[in-house]
């Protein structure tokens, strides 16, 4: 394509006429680097590799500035498809976290399914067995103007997740759902996948040492390449406009869990063969950016070049142009780099033992080229060289300095009179779509497959699995972010998301071992959106740094994987800043973990964490008073760390039999949920005066300041109090578990809440199913 010698308008016209997203200056820099006009396939390769999605061109500098990705337990930071931290001397946990927001808004079912499909490939290709997933979801207002469309998206996304995830055979053990009108035109569908691998059996997503010198084979495995997802990364890097929907549709990938299930088993056979024979391979999934992204990154990260023949790649049809073959995002594909002597056996595993051609029409494993030493990225198609560029230049990407400007919004605390009947108010909060039981959704998810599940959704703040038979250790997983806090303060939204995700795993007795962040924001070319992004990253990094990896003083909990999703914006506006955090917790013996439901009448109940006047963005303000407010919960880092450690230690010492963290809906919702989660028959009687605060009763009950409620094992009160004091925490013994299904809360001599739990259970259970009907 001609670029040299043309003016900007002509270059622009040329780029758009073939559907390229590159800017004129980006195209000129390509031509300059090549010293000639680039070919169309070359430009598409750059378009792909320099997209926001692949190159992090807007976000990289900020991420590097703030995030701590290293730590004593880190085996692999964010440089490859997934991050890895050590569980013990032998086993490691692998984690990846991504968004699939744009496609899910257009094709909810396939979009959400592809999200799971991509993330499990990222984990599997490290040589790991994928053992759990989690799904943080954000939908629009189910009772607002766009309610029918919002519900159509929500239903389609949940269907896509179960239809894909269940068939794949990976349990969904955690997730969250928030409804908020800022997501009316831009839903968020994030996915987290977790795997386990032995430290010595990790497979790298790069060409192995010697691959260039010895001419290793490059093999593509899986679905035949078609045009689906062509332009996908560019699509994910632009705002959604309705008139573009038809064009964007072409960018959607079509997932196939059945083929994926078979591919995983074939991969397992391949990995076993390479382990048995001591052969080092490179293995990577083909995700965003397709063939070009996988092949160029695998070569460049090892300092090698690639010589690839697109004619050899198996395709769904023979009339695809070379740039489509190279850049389409056809799902269910992997790339393998191996020594030629392994090739026949690798091909047999896929094409004969696992019979890919009969499992999916046209699927197979094909040798497509060789690794070279010359640093060139060469592709050929129908006998001509379609691309011959520096692999390093292609993969290095570009950086943008984006402008930031604080978003000025007018916030104030409302003047509100305390409602007369707090029981009724609490019932309303419990029935809100954002607080009510998540059962309507998680019953669609196979939370049990693989047989490793110890704690399921609905039983505690985090899910827990025992992923390796014969071992006692457990992996806990939780996800969190509150968009309402993000609207008020992006910084505290980032910090509280980290703190809450850690509290969630601590509440079952696991220690937070690593975090991932999936950062969902509007258009970064707008200075306010970019400021929100930077504030969130700063907040979450500060929290991770200040909350320390347990057992290591002054050492951040490492963030080993993550993803940035910009352009979650439509002409109606951007999504509320949503730094979605996942936390992996580890516990030595899964049998020591505790759940949240009340255990026994007579047990004492303790509050951890003083109540503050922090109701900004709270469920109470929004649902009951229709206001947002200003005083968002903040993280008091030292207090937070002491609370988290105290809870972990008290569970490890078997002083606590039930624990639940305080979040949406405040202390009131937390107490009610502990009673509602278990078998009927138990209740609570709590004295709010023991919280040692002069806040009014409604603020005490609904403040979302961080904390926990703990049910103490009978007879262990003194030991628990000693332990809490050791961490400098106030002793706030609020009351007892009772043997009648009622929740009482007393304040200054009055009973301010008296709730029949069987009636409350109906409202709490129906809240979400009504919103999704």
């Amino acid at each position, binding site marked *: 394509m001609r670029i040299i010698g043309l003016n900007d308008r002509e270059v622009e016209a040329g780029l758009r006429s073939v559907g390229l997203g590159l800017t004129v200056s980006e195209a000129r820099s390509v031509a300059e680097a090549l010293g000639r006009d680039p070919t169309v396939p070359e430009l598409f390769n750059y378009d792909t590799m320099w997209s926001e999605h692949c190159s992090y061109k807007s976000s990289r500098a900020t991420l590097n500035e703030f995030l701590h990705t290293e730590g004593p337990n880190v085996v692999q930071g964010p440089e490859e498809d997934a991050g890895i931290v050590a569980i013990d001397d032998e086993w490691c946990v692998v984690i990846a976290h991504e968004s699939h927001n744009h496609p899910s808004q257009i094709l909810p079912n396939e979009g959400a399914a592809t999200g799971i499909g991509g993330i499990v490939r990222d984990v599997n290709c490290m040589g790991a067995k994928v053992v759990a997933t989690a799904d943080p979801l954000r939908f629009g207002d189910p009772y607002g103007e766009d309610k029918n469309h919002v519900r159509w998206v929500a239903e389609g996304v949940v269907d896509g997740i179960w239809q894909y995830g269940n068939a794949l055979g990976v349990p969904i053990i955690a997730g969250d759902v928030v409804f908020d009108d800022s997501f009316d035109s831009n839903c968020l569908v994030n996915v987290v996948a977790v795997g386990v691998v032995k430290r010595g059996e990790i497979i790298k997503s790069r060409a192995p040492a010697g691959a260039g010198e010895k001419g290793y084979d490059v093999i593509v495995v899986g679905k035949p390449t078609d045009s689906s997802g062509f332009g996908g990364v560019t699509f994910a890097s632009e705002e959604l406009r309705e008139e573009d929907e038809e064009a964007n549709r072409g960018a959607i990938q079509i997932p196939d869990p*059945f083929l994926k*299930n078979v591919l995983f088993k074939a991969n397992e056979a391949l990995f076993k063969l390479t382990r048995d024979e001591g052969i080092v391979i490179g293995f990577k999934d083909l995700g965003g950016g397709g063939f070009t992204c996988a092949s160029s990154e695998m070569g460049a990260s090892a300092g090698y070049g690639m010589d690839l023949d697109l004619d050899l790649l198996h395709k769904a049809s023979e009339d695809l142009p070379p740039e489509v073959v190279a850049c389409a995002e056809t799902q269910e594909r992997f790339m393998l780099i191996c020594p030629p002597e392994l090739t026949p056996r690798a091909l047999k595993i896929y094409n004969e033992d696992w019979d890919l051609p009969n*499992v999916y029409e046209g699927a197979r494993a094909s040798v497509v080229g060789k690794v070279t030493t010359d640093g060139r990225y060469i592709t050929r198609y129908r006998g001509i060289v379609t691309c011959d560029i520096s692999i390093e230049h292609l993969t290095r990407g570009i950086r943008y300095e984006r402008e930031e400007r604080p978003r000025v919004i007018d916030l104030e605390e409302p003047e509100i009179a305390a409602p007369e009947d707090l029981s009724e108010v609490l019932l309303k909060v419990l029935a809100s779509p954002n607080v009510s039981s998540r059962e309507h959704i998680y019953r*669609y998810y196979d939370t049990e497959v693989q047989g490793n*599940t*110890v*704690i399921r959704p609905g039983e505690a703040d985090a899910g827990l699995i*025992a992923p390796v038979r014969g071992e006692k250790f457990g992996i806990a997983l939780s996800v969190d972010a509150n968009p309402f806090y993000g609207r008020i303060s992006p910084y505290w939204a980032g910090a509280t998301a980290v703190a809450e995700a850690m509290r969630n795993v601590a509440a079952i007795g696991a220690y937070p071992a690593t975090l991932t962040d999936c950062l969902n924001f509007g258009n970064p070319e707008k200075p306010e959106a970019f400021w929100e992004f930077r504030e969130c990253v700063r907040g979450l990094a500060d929290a991770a740094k200040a909350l320390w990896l347990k057992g290591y003083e002054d050492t951040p909990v490492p963030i080993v994987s993550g993803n940035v999703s910009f352009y979650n914006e439509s002409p109606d506006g951007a999504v509320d800043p949503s730094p979605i955090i996942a936390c992996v917790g580890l516990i030595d013996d899964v049998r020591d973990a505790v759940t949240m439901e009340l255990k026994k009448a007579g047990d004492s109940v303790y509050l951890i964490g003083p109540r503050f006047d922090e109701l900004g963005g709270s469920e109470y303000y929004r649902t009951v008073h229709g206001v947002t407010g200003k005083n968002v919960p903040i993280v008091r880092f030292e207090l937070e760390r002491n609370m988290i450690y105290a809870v972990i230690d008290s569970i490890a010492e078997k002083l606590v039999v039930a624990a639940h963290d305080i979040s949406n809906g405040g202390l009131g919702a937390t107490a009610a949920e502990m009673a509602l989660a278990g078998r009927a028959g138990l209740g609570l009687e709590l004295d709010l005066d023991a919280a040692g605060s002069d806040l009014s009763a409604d603020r005490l009950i609904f403040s979302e300041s961080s904390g926990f409620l703990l049910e103490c094992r009978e007879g262990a009160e003194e030991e628990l109090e000693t332990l809490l004091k050791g961490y400098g925490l106030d002793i706030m013994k609020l009351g007892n578990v009772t043997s009648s299904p009622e929740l009482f809360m007393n304040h200054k001599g009055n009973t301010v809440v008296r709730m029949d739990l069987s009636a409350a259970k109906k409202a709490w259970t129906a809240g979400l199913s009504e919103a999704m009907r």
Partner: protein
Amino acid sequence: MKVAVIQFPGTNCEHETLVAARSAGLAGEIFRWNRPAEELTEFDGYIIPGGFSYQDRLRAGAIASKEPVMDALREEAERGKPIIGICNGFQILTESGLLPGLGGVDVALASNVMVSKGEIVRRGFYCAWTTLRCETPARRCSGSFILDKGDLVSMPLAHAEGNLVTADEDLMERLNEEDQIVFRYCDEGGNVEREFPVNVNGSRENIAGICNPEGNVLGLMPHPERSSFAWQLPPTDSAKSAGDMTAPGPGRRIFESMKRYIEVMR
């Protein structure tokens, strides 16, 4: 005593099923669907585990039931060897006519329909723990060999198509009379309530599992392999944290039954 856990493309419970079978004292291996079918004869019993063979395309179990490995299994069944189909395995056994084993395809496992007070309250996939009541005397069937009539066994289920229906109006009577209804969904106290959530998928007469007339072939929708260890239980079960990591859960009795059946019958 060696069992084959049959693995179709799309099966996803083979590993935990083999682990559960081993915990009951059976030896075994995973048997890929396209291995030479004659190699099946060397096994003493067979388990078709859960999953989504061929992604439930057309109907759950319909495509897998046409695979040659099913013809080989039919021959082994005729020799009296035990076959247990779990979830998708049950669906495959009904589609291939091995269950209820009256000569043709005599039932269907249709899409779940959750009915409460006469209204459809939910449909589609459902995952939850359930209690099964054993409806047949001990030794009636390979997979309930050591269970007595009235015994309660809790285990999770997870499926979209487990609603047993039949167009043959005489069939239910026959299944009842011949003691071919092995498990029914019930509440924790053993009461067989006809509506959701106890009847979790709308199945005729709360049927969760049936056997063939000879008793060697059993199919059930819930997953005993997910209930074979105490730590797998829900937290409201007092046995959950008792004992070490190998302490048994109630589902193991299905595999122990199979083992006992093989011991007695061969």
